[in-house]
């Protein structure tokens, strides 16, 4: 199906500079994918949502009580067609609430089952994830999501157990991860979220768990189609050297590509909700063509299963058609959307490097890098990022990136900044400032 009409389930649009210089052999494309608001799928798909809760010793008391309440509230928000379950883990995992439909009766039973949950023991992420996988493989056609919560490091994990379990979970379910408090490691939790197509976020304290879970349940419930793939056709002699999601967050997907034929590679892009949109960057290496020649360099499409049949959606505006020219004025142009995301990536890198420098006591570098981040965030009107940065630095002049490190910084503020550093501001149709 090729369509740019509003009723198409997905719309693709590619942004790039179509004129390469003579001998030009590479280009960068930003492809925007948007799911239709209405009519994304013909019939609603079954949803399965599991809560994977850390019940280690440190969770004992307020934390586990707050989580129990939040789970109950979250489950109450589910519709009756959804299936839910609860798993708790320490060094081992166990089912607290076996998967069942979210009917009123089952919700009440779940509440009772949760009552007995209390905190004790160590922490081994893989046990909870593996148990979730074992349950969710029984629903191969459903939209399968998990909400994972921990408050500490993965310290009781058996050596070598984590990687294989995580690998086995890929493609079975998607997982949003929450770290409660500040005694957990951003990298560990992000690893789970990244591999399982979700987001890692920080919850400052027990009082904020309910709101976080409500948002997570809403997000899970909004998904209408699962196992969507981005399929890229390119001609012989062309290489796709990079594929990165750039919005809502920066994720390098290059390694997850599967070549399904000599000229076609597919990348899993997870489940989508109506109206959802994401931007992807594609770097392409092409054989230089003759002056004036036109070449279709990449043709992206969106692929998913519906009623047992594969659907492939293309848009004319998604095609990447390039030509070669001696006109330097044309070939030196940079597409505004491409430039925007290049800038957002630079911003993410500045934040990460700045936080790392601060961590190891290199205040001079930290000041310079976080100052650069403030400047970039200001230039791209990324107010969210500026607000986060301001919890870590005092800003003297945003335009020039002049900042001072705050003497005492809330650990939650630096962890939150680190977690959100890869969240980008979406490129708008008309950029405010010229790059």
């Amino acid at each position, binding site marked *: 199906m*090729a369509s740019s009409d509003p009723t198409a389930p997905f719309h693709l649009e590619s942004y*790039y500079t*179509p004129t390469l210089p003579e001998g030009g052999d590479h280009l960068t494309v930003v492809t925007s994918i948007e799911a239709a608001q209405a009519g994304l799928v013909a019939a609603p798909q079954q949803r399965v949502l599991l809560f994977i809760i850390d019940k280690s010793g440190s969770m004992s008391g307020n934390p586990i009580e707050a989580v129990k309440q939040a789970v109950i509230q979250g489950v109450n928000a589910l519709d009756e067609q959804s299936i839910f379950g609860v798993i708790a883990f320490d060094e081992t995992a166990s089912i607290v609430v076996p998967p069942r439909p979210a009917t009123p009766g089952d919700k009440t039973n779940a509440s009772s089952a949760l009552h007995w949950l209390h905190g004790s023991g160590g922490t081994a992420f893989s046990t909870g994830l593996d148990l979730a996988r074992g349950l969710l493989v029984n629903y191969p056609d459903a939209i399968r999501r998990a909400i994972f919560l921990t408050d500490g490091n993965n310290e009781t994990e058996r050596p070598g157990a984590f990687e294989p379990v995580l690998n086995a979970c890929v493609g079975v379910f998607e997982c949003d991860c929450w770290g409660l408090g500040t005694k957990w490691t951003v990298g560990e939790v992000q690893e789970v979220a990244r591999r399982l197509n979700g987001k890692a976020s920080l919850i400052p304290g027990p009082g904020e768990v309910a709101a976080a879970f409500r948002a997570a349940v809403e997000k899970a419930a909004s998904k209408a189609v699962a196992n969507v793939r981005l399929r890229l056709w390119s001609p*012989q002699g062309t290489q796709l050297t990079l594929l990165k999601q750039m919005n809502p967050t920066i994720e390098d997907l290059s390694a997850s590509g599967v070549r399904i034929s000599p000229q076609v590679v597919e990348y899993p892009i997870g489940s989508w909700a109506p109206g959802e949109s994401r931007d992807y960057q594609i770097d392409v290496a092409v054989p230089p063509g003759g*002056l*004036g020649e036109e*070449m*279709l360099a990449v043709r992206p499409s969106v692929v998913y299963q519906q009623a047992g049949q594969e659907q492939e959606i293309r848009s004319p505006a998604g095609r990447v058609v390039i030509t070669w020219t001696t006109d330097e004025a*044309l070939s030196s142009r940079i597409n505004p959307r491409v430039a925007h995301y290049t800038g957002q990536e630079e911003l993410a890198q500045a934040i990460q490097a700045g936080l790392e420098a601060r961590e190891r006591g290199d205040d001079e570098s930290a000041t310079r890098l976080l100052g650069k981040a403030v400047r970039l965030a200001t230039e791209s009107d990324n107010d969210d990022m500026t607000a986060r940065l301001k919890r870590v630095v005092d800003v003297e002049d945003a335009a020039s990136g002049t900042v001072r490190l705050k003497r005492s910084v809330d650990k939650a503020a630096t962890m939150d900044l680190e977690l959100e550093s890869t969240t980008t501001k979406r490129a708008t149709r008309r950029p405010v400032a010229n790059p």
Partner: protein
Amino acid sequence: MRCPTCGAIAPEPSRFCERDGTRLVDDNNEAAPQTASNDPATTPCACGNTAFDPDGFCTRCGKARPPASRAFDHVEQAPLPELAGISDRGRRHPWNEDALSLGAERVGEAGAEAVHVLVVCDGVSSARDAQHMAQLAAEVTRAHLLESTRTDLAPELAMRQAIAAAHAALLAAPEAAAAPDDAASADPSKSQAPGCTIVAAVVRAGQATVGWVGDSRAYRLDLDPPACQLLTHDHSWFNEMVDAGRLSPEEAAQAPERNAITRCLGPLGVDAPGEAPEAGVVACEVSPGQMLLLCSDGLWKYAEDPAALGALVGEAAAGAPLALDISRHLIEFANARGGSDNITAAILQLS
């Protein structure tokens, strides 16, 4: 064959009706026969693959389906021993977007007077339709110029009208209306619209009337002793700056846009609908022994100085060869220098 629109009889092979520019098809509704097949369905991609996706791109190498015209890669026309021309793709461009159209008639009482018409067009822009536009402009201009010699119309006026007719034909062509549907491109559609330059000459009774739009040129040459006079004045950014006194020749020669043309035929050449590019027109005498050379920039860029071009033509004309031989010599010269653009040269030897 007959033109389906106006009924005029067209000599074969012709792509366009000489009178109204209608694209010609033969009775079987296939494209007019060419020296090579130009049916898109059978012309394979340069990579050898014969399958194209619905948008016209090769399913193997991704290149756009070749515009149906390898046929114009090397075109030779020699209606008379003294009137000939060649249009060649050159060495670098994937297809030939230059066009050549030559004509000759005998007019007046008992057809005592010879009239010669030469037209050279150079398709502009990377749009694939530039080639079609150039072919159309050249043939419509030739047809009008030949027609006008059967009337009393003043030569300069006739030239302006012929070029205006060519411009109108380009605007009316279906390709001109189709703006590319490419939301991805930041370029205004103007730079994708097709257009072409033109230089045309009518020679009758020792008078040459030359008209042009763009940077295709006409020269008048003497052979003994060799002399070469540029008759046209390029509509180029360089000339515009220098003529207006805004830059010195040295300064203008530095600018990267020095060779950009400032006028051409077709949708690309006008800023607003309804406008028409103003042609340059010049008239001069031509005497027996002299020669007219019309050419595209694919030739003169390799011999910008008229004196150099004069020497080249003198060399080509040694031994009194036919106009076609002289044309060949010029094409070979340009290709030997690199052939970075399409090359077209048309020659008329006055006797």
